[in-house]
Each structure stands twice: as structure tokens, then as C-alpha cells.
């Protein structure tokens, strides 16, 4: 089982959620984060003084999926989150050793 963590542009959230759902993934967890990267922030003037916005708003999506689905999910996210412009974000794949569904106590793929 893998955790797919995607950092995406906030306004792509709905597209990505739909793309993933279509594959049959039933759950995901979203966090509002701030990203620092090649896409540079911008400088604003407030009352004549400078104001650097380094960290840009991003959305982090975490989707736990069973092994076989990983590639399809990664592809779905890649496609739906892409604008072709810098700052589109990253996808990280990390191992999960175990999953538990709190309500039922189920574990493994059934818990997803």
C-alpha cells in the first residue's frame, strides 16, 4: 500500500478530486499548505513599503491506495493538476505499512 501525496495548485482541487474518484478511489485527505519553490512569490507594496510573499498557497492531497492503483492515480493527478506553468506541484509516493479503519477495525486494503 502506498501513500500518494500531491502538492497542487488550489484551484485544481476539484478537477483532481474528480479525476481520482473516477478511478474508483473513495477517499482522500486535503490540507491547505504553503509552498516555496521555483515558482517565486511576488512583492507587493502596502502603504509604500515592500511586502514579499514567499510562500504561495497550495493544496496537499493525501491518497492512500493499494499497490496496483498507484500508477493510475499518479497519472490521473498529473493530468488533472497540470496547467503547464511553473508551480504545478509535485507528487510523492511513500510506503504505508499498515492501515486501519477506525470504525470497523478493518486493516489493509479493506480499510481504504
Amino acid at each position, binding site marked *: 500500500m502506498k501513500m500518494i501525496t500531491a502538492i497542487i495548485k488550489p484551484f485544481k482541487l476539484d478537477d483532481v478530486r474528480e479525476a481520482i474518484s473516477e478511478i474508483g478511489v473513495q477517499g482522500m485527505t486535503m490540507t491547505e499548505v504553503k509552498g516555496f519553490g521555483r515558482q517565486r512569490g511576488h512583492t*507587493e*507594496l502596502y*502603504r*509604500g*513599503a*515592500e511586502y514579499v510573499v514567499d510562500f504561495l498557497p497550495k493544496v496537499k492531497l493525501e491518497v492512500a491506495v493499494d499497490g496496483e492503483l498507484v500508477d493510475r492515480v499518479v497519472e490521473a493527478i498529473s493530468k488533472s493538476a497540470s496547467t503547464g506553468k511553473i508551480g504545478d506541484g509535485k507528487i510523492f509516493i511513500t510506503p504505508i505499512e499498515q492501515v486501519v479503519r477506525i470504525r470497523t477495525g478493518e486493516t489493509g486494503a479493506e480499510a481504504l
Partner: protein
Amino acid sequence: MEQQVAELAYALDTFYFLISGALVMWMAAGFTMLEAGLVRNKSTAEILTKNIALYSIASVMFMVVGYNIMYSDGINSFIPGIGFFISGDNTPADVAAGFTGDLSYDGLGDRPYYSDRADFFFQVVFVATAMSIISGAVAERMKLWAFLAFAVVMTGFIYPIQGFWSWGGGFLDELGYVDYAGSGIVHFTGAVAALAGVLLLGARKGKYGPDGQINAIPGAALPLATLGVLILWLGWFGFNGGSELKVSDVDSANNVAAVFANTNLSAAGGVITALIMSRLLFGKADLTMALNGAIAGLVAITADPLSPSPLLAAIIGGVGGVIVVFSIVGLDKLKIDDPVGAISAHGTAGIWGVMAVLLSNGDATFMGQIIGLAAIFAFVFVTSLIVWFILKLVMGIRLSEEDEYVGADVAECGLEAYPEFVKKS
């Protein structure tokens, strides 16, 4: 019928005074919201506390001693007398006694034509205004109780003494210093006391970088700041409109009406030019500059909202709006940190307002206006500096670095202004 007409005029003027005073009291809410909108989240509850407390202290101190200093007989034209608490009011007989059948200002003679208690109420809200100006400039880093201690001295003594010079019949009055509703006496005074405090206090941590850069510290809630300015705008109709001191005859009524119209136009002029200036200088329509422009326009017209034509009033405000933008940027260059722009809007624009009297009021003289400003500056700056300095020695005026980092709200008030909202760290 004579007695009745005199009584009716007295009643109308008293009522006009009270309503004007209530509008000026409302300015306390304006300053509170403006300042709460322009500081950071973590200093918001404390600035609210300061504002409601300073208004309360001003009310009590002016009742206890300030009013009696400001309107004392005076030892001489520089040194006022002293007295305590508020005495009685006029009787119907007093009012009727000298009634000549002439309601106009010139026909009044020595006759009282409005309630003394209404006068006290109207004056008390003015001193609160002057004090409110200060809280914004020293926001986010000054200790609450030191500030309140300063408020006691400022509203009980410093303001009343300089007020005595002009409005209490002192030497500035004799000299012909013209300042209708107090561009200098109230607004410049507040700004000067604030400047003294800021100089001793220093800038907020992080405001000025090590190699001279000026960092923006955006205000946390601009809707509140905008509401504050609109409250002030409304309140100013009482501030300037009430300063005619009489409404009960045709000339006075016309004057009050002209003051309302001019006050409104001057504020409007300030908004428009400040907005255009910020578009030209910064490339964007900086709302906070427009807000300061409104106040600058209001302050600028306050020294004479009666003599200018409506067009000139809009221009005086418009110039105020330009001045305030440059003043804010300029003070930042001098590393004078004023989170809400109070020193610029009330001080720099106040100077402009006092001098702009010369444009339309034949009674004012260049020297009279200059001396007025100089006298106010010298006295208020020096006395304020001394008081701030003593407070610094006795109890300290600046929050500890950690308290400033955590925020005055938690450090001084033990609570947060918006505890449930997630905030950027």
C-alpha cells in the same frame, strides 16, 4: 413671549450641542475600529482595550480637573488656573435676563444661550479625540498601563493647558490664532504627543530591516478600518458642525450648514487624491491610503470649515490627501513607525489645515498661525516627552521582546481578539 423665545433658542442650541457631542463621542468608535483594523491580529484586543479605557479616562479626568483648567480664569494668558469637578447650570432667569430680542450672535451679549453642562459634554469628547490619536501611533508595542497612565496626564493637564491658550482665552486667542474646530488644538496636539511617544518607544520589531529596508506590516482587518473611517467621517459633522457653537438664528444655521457641506467635501477630496496618488506611486489603489486620505481631508478642513467655498473645501481636502501619502512614506524613511498613519493624518495634515486657513479667512495671519503651531508643538512635545520618559523610568513603556512577539493581546489582556480563527504564524 420674549422669555419663551429665548428659552426655545436656548433649548435648540443645547440640543444641537448635545447631538454634536454625541456624534463626536461616536468618533471613539471610529478610532477604535480604524486602529483595530490596521494592527495585527495579535495586538487587536489590546488596542480595543486601550481605546475604550482612554475614552473613559479622558471623560473622568476632564471632569475632575481638565475642564476647569481649560476654561479657568487663568493666572495669566500662559498659565491657566485650576479647579475641580463640574458646577451648576444656568437658570431660566439668567437666560431671560439679558435677552435683547436679538437671537443673532452679536445680540447675545453676556447672556448664556446654551447649557453649561452641554458645553462640558461637548468639550469632554474633544479631549478623548486627541487622546485616541495617540493610541494608534504607539500600537503593538507599548505597555497598556503605561499608556493609560499617560492618558491621565494628557487629558487632565497637557491638553487642557494648551486648550486654554486658544479656546480658554489665553495668549493664542489674543494673538489671533484661528483654529475653528481644532486642526491644531486637537489633531496636531494628539499627533505631537504621539510623535514624542513613538520616538522614545522605537519601531515595532521587524518593521525596519538591518540594511535600511522598510517592511510592510499589513493591517489584519481592513473592513474594520474602513468602518472606522466612515464612523469618523460621520462623527466629524459633530466635531466641526458643533464648533459653530450656535445654530439658533439664520446666520448661525447657514454657517453650520456650510460647515457640514465643506467637511464632507474635504474628506471626499482627500479620498480621491490619496487614491490617485497611491495608484501613481505604487501602481495599485491602496485602500489604506484612501482611508488616511479621508482623515487627512477632515483634519485639514477642521481649522476653518466655514470660510472656504465648497470647491475650495474639496481642494483643501485634496491637498491633504496628497500630503498624507507623502508624509506616511516619508516618516517610514525616517524610521518613525506609526502603524495607523496617525502622525501623518492628524499631524502633517493638521499643519496644512492650520495654514490653509489663510486661503479664505481674512482674520487669520501667517504669523498667528505659525506661532500657534509652534507653541502647540513646543509645549506638547516637551511635556509629553517628559511624561513618557518618566513612565519609561518608573514602569517601562515598551513590551518585552517576547511579549511583543506573542502579541500584546495575550501578554496584556490574557485573551485573543479572534481566538477561533486560524491565523498565519
